[in-house]
């Protein structure tokens, strides 16, 4: 009897092995499944019929959500494309005063969450804000009826704000693509009689297109994810709608239905991004690089270039950082009395736990798929790291529903067996928040670690194995020391994104539990920006850390020497598989 069971187990193992499975692979698939559960949950809920909510939604708010979301994406897409590629072209191909400063300074707005900029811009530009007060004093206007001023809290305002903080994605990728282009190709276009501007439009831009598309789609994914800005500006996009339907109309199913419609948009973006990335590979054509020819710009063109690069930095970073610093200095005692340290500690610990977990899981998955688990493991890992594209509001629903089910099941079991109700163990606790963070940001750590492991030749693994190491020992003795630097980078990236994260946190956090992000959002929404300035400034300060990392790699890579810069340039922030 025992032998037949053993035989059965053995033959099962063999069957697994024939599919490319072993202990590591099974573990990798299990972990990947756990991380992917929220995504699967959303899909299942979306597919499950729940008739009347659906018809209600589609007859009332849905068309509006679709319209506003599409306009938002269109605006942000065009805006980030123009600013991102324009500034990238100027700093890589032209010489004008301040070029080296702008080279890295153009990344700074990346540190500012869109909602923070939204609060600052509103604070400064609305009726009682600095600018309008100033205008009224100069022109002697008495009230609103005397002059026209654009409405800040509008779709247009949201587009402007998001464009200003998201264009660095496009800047970063198109800059790398321009640097990578062979000078010869550009010079050929000059010899064929095309001027620098026509060269840009007919050669450089088409060559950089795949990179630009990736940059724009990443920016659009962030725009789709945004909750703070659209909520504050009262722009009814999908993310705002999901929040509204769930928390205000108290309809989880309705929220899930909306999430499923939104997933169509997300999938379109993921598809576009993947397709563009595939195209990118064909562009490493010529290995001949020399110092890029930089046109020296004269007088007014130089001034134009200077202003064109200065404005995004000024509006996207200097303005919010300056205003927040001024408020923080003036009102810090108010912030401190509002339990700033508690919120900061909450943010730090949540982000640190999530970063640690994301790095551990990322390393496990990257190493697991390196061990050659076959197509099943590879597909599972890829799916697990798709969370970066899924808006936080959707993921929140996907986390909430399975955890609530699990809680109910545990509670029921406990009541049956022990006679004691357990209540909510997972949902509505920080476990849910951390789960959401890891599901959303795993791609950052996984991508970074996978890229880093890829640089280790497979024969290193083979050498370690033939010298007597098990896969685990090889990981500890060979791979771990070699990727240590990347582990830190990966942890930092996840940490900072968790600090900034708003929609997931606001939906999943325990009752009355505040992080810096939710605290800033709550206070600033109630027109108490001054009191929350220190919190917002802390988030921006944390966001500067990865920007410094990226800037360093940019400064190290000189134009015409893309070998040093290319890999790192497209590096951490966008290192998605």
């Amino acid at each position, binding site marked *: 009897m025992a032998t037949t069971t053993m035989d059965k187990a053995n033959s099962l193992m*063999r069957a697994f*092995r024939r599919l490319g499975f072993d202990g590591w692979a099974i573990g990798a698939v299990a972990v990947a499944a756990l991380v992917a559960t929220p995504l699967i949950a959303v899909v299942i809920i979306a597919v499950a019929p729940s008739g009347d909510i659906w018809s209600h939604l589609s007859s009332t708010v849905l068309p509006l959500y679709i319209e506003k979301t599409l306009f938002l994406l269109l605006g942000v897409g065009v805006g980030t494309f123009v600013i991102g590629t324009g500034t990238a072209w100027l700093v890589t191909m032209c010489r004008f005063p301040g070029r080296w400063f702008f080279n890295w300074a153009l990344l700074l707005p990346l540190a500012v969450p869109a909602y923070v900029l939204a609060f600052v811009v509103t604070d400064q530009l609305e009726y009682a804000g600095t600018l309008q007060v100033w205008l009224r004093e100069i022109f002697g206007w008495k009230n609103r009826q005397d002059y026209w001023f654009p409405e800040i809290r509008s779709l247009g305002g949201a587009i402007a704000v998001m464009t200003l903080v998201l264009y660095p994605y496009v800047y970063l990728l198109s800059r790398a693509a321009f640097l990578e282009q062979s000078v010869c190709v550009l010079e050929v276009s000059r010899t064929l009689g095309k001027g620098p501007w026509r060269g840009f439009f007919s050669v450089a831009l088409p060559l950089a297109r795949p990179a630009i598309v990736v940059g724009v789609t990443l920016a659009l994914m962030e725009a789709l994810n945004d909750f703070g800005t659209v909520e504050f500006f009262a722009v009814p996009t999908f993310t705002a709608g999901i929040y509204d339907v769930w928390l205000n109309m108290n309809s989880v199913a309705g929220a899930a239905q909306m999430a499923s419609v939104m997933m169509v948009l997300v999938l379109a973006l993921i598809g576009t991004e993947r397709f563009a990335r595939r195209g990118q590979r064909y562009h490493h054509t010529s290995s001949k690089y020399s110092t890029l020819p930089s046109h020296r710009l004269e007088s007014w063109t130089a001034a134009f270039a200077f202003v064109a690069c200065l404005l995004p930095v000024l509006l996207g970073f200097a303005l919010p950082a300056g205003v927040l610093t001024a408020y923080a200095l003036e009102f810090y005692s108010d912030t401190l009395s509002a339990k700033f340290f508690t919120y900061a500690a909450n943010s730090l610990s949540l982000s640190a736990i999530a970063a640690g977990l994301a790095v551990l899981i990322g390393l496990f998955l990257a190493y697991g798929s390196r061990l050659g688990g076959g197509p099943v493991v590879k597909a599972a890992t890829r799916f697990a790291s798709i969370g970066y594209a899924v808006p936080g509001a959707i993921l929140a629903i996907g986390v909430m529903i399975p955890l609530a089910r699990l809680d109910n099941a545990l509670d029921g079991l406990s009541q049956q067996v022990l006679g004691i109700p357990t209540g909510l163990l997972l949902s509505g606790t920080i476990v849910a928040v951390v789960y959401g963070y890891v599901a959303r940001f795993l791609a950052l750590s996984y991508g970074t670690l996978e890229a880093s492991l890829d640089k280790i030749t497979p*024969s290193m693994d*083979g*050498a370690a194995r*033939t*010298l007597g190491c098990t896969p685990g020992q090889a990981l500890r003795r060979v791979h771990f020391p*070699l990727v240590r630097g990347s582990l830190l980078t990966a942890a930092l990236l996840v940490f900072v994104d968790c600090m900034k994260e708003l929609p997931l946190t606001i939906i999943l956090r325990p009752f009355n539990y505040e992080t810096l992000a939710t605290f800033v959002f709550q206070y600033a929404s109630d027109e108490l920006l001054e009191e929350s300035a220190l919190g917002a400034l802390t988030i921006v300060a944390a966001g500067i850390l990865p920007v410094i990392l990226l800037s360093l790699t940019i400064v190290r890579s000189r134009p015409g020497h893309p070998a040093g810069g290319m890999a790192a340039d497209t590096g951490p922030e966008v290192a998605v598989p």
Partner: protein
Amino acid sequence: MSGLHLNNVSHAFNSGNPVLNGVSVFVAPGELVCLLGPSGCGKTTLLRVAAGLEHLQVGQVTIGERVVAEGRHGKHIPTEKRGIGLMFQDYALFPHLNVLENVTFGLPENAADRRQWALSALSRMGLADYAASYPHILSGGQQQRVALLRALAPEPRVLLLDEPFSGLDVTRRVDIRAETLGLLKETDVATLMVTHDPEEAMFMADRILVMDEGRVIQDGTPVETYFEPLTAFVAALFGPVNRLQGMVRDGHVATILGDFGAQHLEDGAPVEILIRHEGLRLSATGQGAEIQPGEIPCKPAPVDNENSAGACGRMLSARPLGRSSHVELVLTAEDGTEIILEARIPGVFLPQPGAEVLVTANPRQTHVFLAS
């Protein structure tokens, strides 16, 4: 049976094309066997299957007395438990460990005697001063030695070498390969080495296994493989050849250079005659370019064990290569067709173009195969 035994191994990758097709290899302890073949013939895959880095699909792998992999039953002893050493083409030295740490990587904590061995081996290889250095400052030859010592340190029963000298420049290669052979012959390890360089295989191997398209075509000593190639492919693998066409008559095949034995082939079979460049012997007839070619026929030479009857040829070109000369000449057949032959002559042999030479072929370096 000890040593390494690969029995009837077949292997295919996802694309479905078989990379290995019923390959059997045996390497005895202390023996060095070379797998020789063009790139893509499956030799590296065979090495990886032996190491366990690639799962065995069909066949059996035995190391020492122990079956370590069986295709049919799915048995697979993991690489680290097989007691093998593998030296990679790129050496795969661990960049974060110094030379001594690299060499002792595979040793258990308490193997004091082997650590001593590592130190003395390093100093014997002239690497004592580099024990605390990191791999990236070493030259290619030094890295190769460290990789070899690292693979040998745990005293594996089987050593697998994947193109161990291909990363070295030509001048260093000759020295290092002699040094490597000396080191291996001191141990009792069964060595299976992969190479695409026939000269390297001849120098290193006790036996050469010629592989093509996933099959072993010939298994023999270097001398056997060179002088008695079983197929035209094997013959051509060991250096450039001249190819003539012919037909078997009474166990012989007649060519412009004389008759060659073809007892193993059927009468009337169309054949291809392969003559190595170094198998042609030329002697100047003393007739210079100023005499009309063919006007004074050169005398046929007496046929012996080393020379065929031969024929008269006219020089087209001759170039010095240092230790030998490369010669191109043309022969005119009875029906008037011209046959161009190439030869490699030891030393400096540079007749003027147009000069007449007597061409004979060494039957031991002339091979007759059924035309494909």
